[in-house]
């Protein structure tokens, strides 16, 4: 099953990277969300899979006897999920706020911060100004 999940994760990676490269910034945001799932799934798989036995010590015992799901990747993913939620919320609102100012969610039209004419060469004299 690990292998299948590795493929699933890889597919999610591919899907999200494709979305990241789209013109529409909302698709970019969607890509980010899928990317989060992809990497979480990857970590989960890397911790190897154990069916149905959560890492919770049964009442009255001090340790778990027998197999149990690997708790460490779970904790990592939990942290990662929360963090990526924070980042995602920010990104989403950023795209929105940027839209209110620049009126576009077209990634190809984000050029105000890097204007074409920001080079300084005296064209007539052919001299680098000093």
């Amino acid at each position: 099953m690990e292998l299948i999940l590795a493929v699933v994760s890889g597919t999610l990676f591919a899907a999200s990277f494709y979305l990241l490269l789209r013109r529409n910034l909302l698709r970019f945001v969607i890509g980010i969300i899928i990317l989060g799932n992809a990497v979480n799934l990857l970590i989960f798989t890397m911790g190897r899979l154990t069916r149905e036995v959560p890492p919770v010590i049964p009442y009255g015992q001090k340790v778990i006897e027998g197999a149990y799901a690997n708790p460490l990747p779970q904790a990592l993913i939990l942290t990662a999920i929360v963090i990526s939620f924070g980042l995602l919320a920010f990104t989403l609102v950023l795209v929105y706020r940027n839209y209110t100012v620049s009126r576009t969610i077209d990634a190809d039209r984000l050029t105000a911060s890097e204007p074409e004419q920001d080079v300084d060469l005296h064209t007539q004299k052919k001299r680098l100004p000093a």
Partner: protein
Amino acid sequence: MIRSLILQIATRLLVPILLLFSIFMLLRGHNLPGGGFVGGLVAASAFVLYSLAVGVDGARRVLRLAPRTLLGTGLACSVGAGILSLATGASFLQSLWVKVPLPGLSDPLKLGSTLIFDIGVMFVVVGTVLLMVFSVEDRVPGLIDD
């Protein structure tokens, strides 16, 4: 704000239940699935629901604490739990435990600094969700004309 009588009545019922449930989730987290994060989300959803029913201003009034104060308090709890350990000579974030024997129960109640930590997490989650939702719902007028 959604003007709906059903929603308003439902909200009045649901909000206390949700808040209680969130505390339950927080407390059981150490031994069973749950914890500060989930608890915080439940509590936050209670206030979000309330804000949908009576508006952001109303929710803010009920909340009493500004979301940013919640954030600061939550962080202060969590970091404070760590500092508490340091102050007692233990390592940073080392858990400290006090066993309180309760009458009528065989097991003593174990209170740990991790609980303070988890409460901090819960506060931060509530503050985060509310600050986000309030900001988005109640944004600067005229940001966009749609």
